[in-house]
């Protein structure tokens, strides 16, 4: 099982922009404890959802050959809470990408209304952390992540 915090992509422009949505449901157990009397989606999981949207965008830009790891959350601001029944949308755009790393920024929407701003950095870890060795296999992009984006890649740029 993978820790996946997006339901599907609605837009995917390789190397430039990705948009993904997540429907928040009271069937998800974490909301039973966060909190029982007043369930709200944790901001940390929205940062993770954005990171997955952006991380797949960055990974695809190098044909999933790099191991893309979230290295820094430069900014994450949310103006509103998200509760069960809401749909969250993550819009991520690549600011810059090099052989070593990528910088991404974007917004978070709740039911199509902007509620947050995020900026983050991803590291291509095989190109950084000089001297450190990682497994050959790309453990970041396994089947489930690739299947999420596959419909947009088969027919051109989506």
């Amino acid at each position: 099982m993978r820790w996946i915090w997006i339901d599907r992509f609605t837009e995917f422009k390789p190397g430039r922009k990705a948009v993904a949505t997540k429907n928040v449901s009271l069937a998800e157990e974490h909301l039973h404890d966060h909190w029982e009397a007043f369930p709200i989606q944790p901001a940390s999981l929205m940062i993770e959802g954005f990171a997955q949207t952006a991380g797949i965008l960055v990974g695809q830009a190098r044909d999933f050959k790099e191991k893309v790891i979230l290295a820094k959350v430069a900014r994450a601001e949310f103006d509103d809470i998200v509760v069960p029944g809401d749909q969250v949308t993550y819009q991520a755009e690549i600011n810059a990408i090099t052989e070593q790393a990528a910088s991404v920024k974007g917004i978070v929407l709740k039911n199509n209304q902007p509620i947050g701003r995020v900026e983050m950095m991803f590291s291509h870890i095989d190109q950084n952390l000089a001297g450190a060795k990682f497994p050959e296999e790309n453990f970041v992009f396994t089947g489930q992540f690739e299947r999420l984006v596959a419909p947009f890649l088969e027919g051109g740029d989506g």
Partner: protein
Amino acid sequence: MPMSEEEIFDKVKKALVEALSVDDDEVAPEATLTGDLGAESIDYLDIVFRLEKAFDIKIPRGELFPDNLLNDPQYVQDGRLTEAALDQFRQRMPHLDLSEFEKDPDVNKITDLFTVQTIFNYVKGKVN
């Protein structure tokens, strides 16, 4: 028209404030990026991206900050930079002030070379 030094410094400061989440007044010319402003390795890449965007310049890998130099045994011996490494710095990084460092080129002190002033010097040379 060349950019004024004030304009360059203000843009450098903005990039550092945003990349390192520090206050404006912490970004003094003599502040070291790692020691005073808390920069970690990924922050150096973030700074490069922000400078490229703010000044509309390209910063090739290894030009502003050293790249993999420290992993080369030719350049580091017994925890000190060799003369060959210092030569590399002199040639490739004229924005660095090596006057103090070269007296005792301890690898652990390399990060002290990278100050706000260093970045300012580099960008100034690049844009004007």
